[in-house]
């Protein structure tokens, strides 16, 4: 249970979303009837599916993993073929154990060099989408490769693969390596003991061959990437934070977002800040945001909340005292769920708010009627919440 659940402490089946409670109770009854394990609203393992599945070792290298949610590609970070499907395809897969699909074309995106301090996987994927378009990956399965990708930890790799769907790719994936195996070892549904070793031997055969040929290759110099921020209503409407709304920006997104062509992005006043989602709601995301917020407070009048990606993330963060840093800084500390990454008629920000958000979509109305969403890394969200305007996290030393 993730999309529809309430994230306010003390929650139960009731939700502010119209029809939400019925959805929860019907799903629970159907799961019970079919003998399907459900991580339910009040279960200690509850969380966003793309956070919980890796935590549990459900996703494994070389497995085929599908879910009726477009961000299933997140789990390609483990060298799985993982992608989002529609409800009819989910029905088909449960009825037949298979899916019918057309073999995708192959693309490799190689990030050379190393990221500068304060620059994150979120900035890598937004750079790719800003340069090559929100439709740039259409028809392709994308492998992310290169020095800067190998250097990422598993959580960072998940952030990178998460937004392959915003690139219109079928999926994003990363070759498994020692970091992948270390992450999975000992997790609840991962193989154990000798079976784990046998699995690793198999997983080591999965990476693309030396000299493998892809239908298309894209190279990006990771060392030149700066923190990214969106200015419009598609993830392709993104810019380096020191940049401006393009002089030739289309009329409709500019009008919706209430910005002017040529306007600098730094300094644009915000009303609210959101940290969470399957993109950036994991422990490392919360740690990096908390490092900036420690000993500081959000600017006056800013509504700010942090929603851990799973209850396990929430507990781990509390064990480190991150919750106290967030609340002392003026953030609400929530239970896990998809929360205000999207609007379903329940909770939202005040109408017309300008929100800086660690989520994945800045569509018109995505976070609520007339809400203006700027997507960015958790660091950029935290820095902007402190300043009260869009701000460069590198200017705020941790």
């Amino acid at each position, binding site marked *: 249970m993730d999309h529809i659940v309430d994230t306010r402490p003390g929650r139960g089946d009731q939700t502010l979303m119209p029809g939400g409670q019925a959805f929860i109770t019907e799903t629970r009854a159907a799961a019970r009837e079919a003998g399907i394990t459900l991580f339910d609203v009040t279960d200690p393992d509850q969380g966003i599916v793309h956070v919980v599945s890796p935590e549990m070792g459900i996703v494994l290298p070389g497995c085929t993993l599908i879910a009726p949610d477009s961000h299933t590609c997140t789990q390609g970070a483990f060298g799985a073929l993982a992608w989002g499907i529609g409800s009819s395809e989910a029905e*088909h897969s449960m009825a037949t154990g298979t899916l019918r699909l057309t073999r995708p074309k192959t693309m490799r995106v190689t990030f050379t060099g190393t990221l500068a301090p304060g620059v994150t996987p979120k900035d890598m994927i937004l750079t790719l989408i800003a340069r090559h378009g929100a439709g740039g990956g259409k028809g392709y399965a994308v492998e992310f490769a290169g020095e800067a990708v190998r250097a990422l930890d598993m959580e960072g790799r998940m952030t990178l693969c998460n937004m392959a769907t915003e690139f219109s790719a079928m999926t994003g994936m990363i070759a498994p390596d020692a970091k992948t195996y270390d992450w999975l070892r000992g997790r609840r549904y991962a193989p154990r003991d000798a079976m784990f070793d046998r699995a690793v031997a198999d997983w080591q055969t999965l990476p693309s061959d030396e000299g493998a040929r892809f239908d298309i290759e894209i190279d990006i110099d990771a060392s030149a990437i700066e923190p990214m921020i969106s200015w419009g209503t598609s993830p392709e409407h993104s810019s380096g934070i020191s940049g401006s709304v393009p002089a030739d920006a289309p009329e409709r997104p500019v009008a919706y977002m209430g910005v002017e062509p040529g306007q600098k992005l730094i300094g644009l006043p915000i009303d609210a800040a959101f940290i969470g989602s399957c993109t950036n709601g994991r422990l490392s995301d919360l740690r990096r945001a908390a490092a900036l917020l420690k000993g500081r407070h959000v600017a006056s009048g800013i509504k700010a909340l942090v929603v851990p990606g799973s209850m396990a993330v929430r507990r781990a963060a509390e064990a480190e005292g991150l919750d106290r840093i967030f609340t002392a800084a003026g953030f609400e500390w929530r239970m896990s769920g998809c929360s205000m990454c999207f609007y379903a008629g329940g909770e939202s920000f005040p109408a017309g708010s300008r929100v800086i958000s660690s989520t994945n979509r800045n569509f018109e109305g995505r976070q609520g009627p007339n809400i203006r969403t700027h997507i960015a890394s958790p660091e950029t969200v935290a820095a902007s919440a402190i300043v009260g305007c869009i701000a460069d996290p590198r200017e705020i030393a941790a």
Partner: protein
Amino acid sequence: MKPFTTLTAVAAPLIRDNIDTDAIIPSREMKSTGKTGLAEGLFAPWRYLSPGGRDPDPQFVLNQPAYAQAEILLGGRNFGCGSSREHAVWALAEYGIRAVIAPSFAPIFAGNCTRNGIVPVVLDDDAIAAIGEDGGLVTIDLAAQTVALQDGPHWSFEIGAEAKAMLFEGLDPIDLTLKSRADIAAFQTADKVARPWIYLGDLMP
């Protein structure tokens, strides 16, 4: 599923790039767990004057009398991007849309269309602009893979053989797949030996 052979209908122009499934049907309009009762929420953010309201915005194309009977939608690049929600296609189908013509589609959306009797037709920008400007009836012939205006211009489009067959014959893909039941079982038996860790059910305590 209703088979799609040919269709002659009005085409409503909504030619914007990156029309996402949140715009086609926002989450707040997905009030049931079923596939019906969604048409009213179709394009709610643009179709109605206020969020959650039902007063039609006269500016929105489907609210204009000329397009009241539209069964074809003209869209822009990357149509149907964003959330995988099949409700977007169910809402279009329930409203009465039988084909969407756009320069490109988001892949999950296109797959959902073919499973619900809506033809995703890919034509270039110039063709779509011409159809929009013509404003008359448009004929889509799935067998011939053509789109034609009443007197003159016509264009060919590409569609995958399987998607075409499913739409044309109104096939249920589950039945189609279950014809290969023996092959599926043989694969799974061999794969369970090669990769037992993939089969969770066998490893559960």
